[in-house]
């Protein structure tokens, strides 16, 4: 199931609209067939050349939204699912809400030049209206110049200049329009929400609440994820995966969730320590393919 970042069904958007698939992307137009064609008669060669040039005509000018960026989430490598027990040390844990803002999504070319995909996106892996408990994949489509790219830059959270604004500053289709992702106590967007339950009593089923709401400029993080990312005029794709378990990494192990101070981020605006730990873990929790 693929979901977009924008839940308002009628508003058309630019980069914030999702498209599960793009029918204009046809890999069969690509060269792998050419070696077979060469074995046949000249007539067929002419036909194939005609087809080749027809395809070229279709490819020029560059197609809109030729690049797909997909976000997925896992827990310890297994697809994430709400209300499902996952192992956390010798106890169980559930992750029932996970969403995050991502800023400055930028592709880096082999020559070091950059192509900005987006200033800001909101990725909600656990939307209310999902048909089941499986974490959804979230896709964004962008127009990207053809070329070989070597990295994706990511900002985890809302970059400071955007975080200085409020939901009322944005149009309904904008990711930062969301009132429920803003907290006046911080004068900040809530960059990331991770909520769930932990089996504190050891009885098997998680029962103790986990709430990590991370925000404020102090916890904003950036990283650059290296990958070979070829983009043609008609296609290109990258999948970014967040492993939620790695958000709990601490001192070579995991947060001690038996300690209540590690189970809920503080609402004290001057105490963002636990939120900072979560946000600091984001880069290591990220993989790209």
């Amino acid at each position, binding site marked *: 199931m693929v979901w977009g970042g924008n*839940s*308002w*069904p*009628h*508003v*058309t958007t630019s980069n914030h609209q999702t498209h599960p698939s793009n029918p204009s992307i046809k890999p069969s137009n690509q060269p792998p067939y050419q070696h077979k064609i060469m074995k046949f008669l000249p007539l067929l060669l002419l036909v194939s050349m005609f087809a080749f040039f027809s395809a070229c005509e279709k490819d020029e000018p560059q197609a809109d939204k030729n690049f797909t960026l997909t976000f997925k989430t896992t827990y310890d490598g297994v697809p994430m699912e*709400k*209300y499902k027990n996952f192992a956390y040390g010798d106890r169980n844990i559930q992750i*029932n809400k996970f969403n995050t803002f991502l800023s400055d999504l930028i592709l880096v070319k082999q020559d070091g030049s950059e192509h900005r995909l987006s200033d800001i996106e909101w990725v909600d892996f656990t939307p*209310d*209206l*999902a*048909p*089941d*408990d499986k974490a959804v994949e979230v896709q964004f489509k962008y127009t990207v110049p053809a070329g070989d790219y070597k990295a994706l830059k990511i900002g985890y959270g809302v970059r400071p200049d955007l975080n200085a604004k409020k*939901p*009322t500053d*944005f*149009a*309904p*289709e904008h990711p930062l*329009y*969301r*009132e*429920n992702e*803003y*907290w*006046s*106590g911080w004068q900040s967007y809530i960059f990331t929400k991770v*909520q*769930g*339950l932990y089996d*504190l*009593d050891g009885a098997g*089923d998680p*029962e*103790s*609440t*986990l*709430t990590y709401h991370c925000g404020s400029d102090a916890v904003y993080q950036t990283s650059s994820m290296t990958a070979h990312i070829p983009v043609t005029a008609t296609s290109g794709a990258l999948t970014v995966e967040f492993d939620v378990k790695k958000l709990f990494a601490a001192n070579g192990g995991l947060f001690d969730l*038996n*300690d*209540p101070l590690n*189970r*809920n981020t503080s*609402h*004290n*605006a001057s105490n963002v320590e636990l939120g900072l730990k979560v946000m600091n873990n984001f880069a290591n929790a990220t993989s790209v393919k």
Partner: protein
Amino acid sequence: MVMGLALAVIALAQCKKDPSGSCGIGCDLTDIPYKTTAYTILKPAHFPQIPVPADNRMTLEGVQLGRRLFYDPILSADSTMSCASCHLPQGSFTDNKAVSTGIDGIAGRRSSMSLLNIAYANNGLFWDGRAATLEAQALIPVEDPIEMHHTWPNLVEQLKQHPEYPALFRKAFGIDNCCGITKELTAKALAQFERILISSGISKYDQFVLGDPDALDDMELDGKLMFFDEGQDVNLPDAQCFHCHGSITLTGNNYFNNGLDSVASLDDFIDKGRGEVSRNRTDNGKFRTPTLRNIALTAPYMHDGRFPTLEAVLQHYSGNGKGVSNEDPFVRQIGFPLGGSVLTYSGLTAYQRQAIVKFLHTLTDTSFVNNPDIQNPF
């Protein structure tokens, strides 16, 4: 003569489109000018922008038609109930009943939701989110057997034959003939009217937000600080309200199990709420968050109207939920943390509950409910 023949052919052609044969000669509307006036929804400057779907742009004529339809009992099978029967302005577009009763005297299961600021609802409508848009929502109560118990074909037929509606649909949507009236256009008009049901922005809370520090008294301010979890510096506990009731419209339109019912299993909720629509048992017992603006005018409270007063609502939340597995975690974290490995929370004292109730009263917006533009036009 040629003209007469042409008109006859057109009229016959129109009749073929309508099996009921109700639209023919005399049903042509093209003599009525079709020139709409763009309608800008008035909203307070500190409110978010209002989403309007591209396929139902706001027009003065559409809003006027929608307003009339909203208050017209023609929408019910026996012409006794209109939308306004359950959504009255003085109740901030609720009926102030625990559950609403339809034309056959059958009580529904749920309380009518306030329509205040409904234009912002972008995450499903009704308590369970079964309609995606206002346009889709408006189609449902007309045929609901425990609400208006009408049928759309019959209602559309009534509208076609009505002495005034065909012209109003013409002015709003440019239909050429009364046969152009459809349930979809009816729903669009209703949705346009509902989108103008926006706060005035001059409640006491709004005055405070806009910079008047004296707009709230000390107790109301205490309530606000707890509501928004901002009271640490003055030793006030978190009431966690804002997590579900965002800062300006005071709802995020999300779905939560807010700890109302103690059930042994998620299958045991009497009203499964969102789960009834999604067929996902972990959605059982979850309902859409209503706005808290004008909440003092919309008693009783919750999806089934179980709490007669705001004090009873705060008493409920002060109990920190029932421990059901899909409860929102913040429902269990109200009050001061009491320490210990198994972290429990204090709930709220009588003063704290009272302060929050007093704050909720600062959200009252009588200018909205008295706005002449949204009253019954009949």
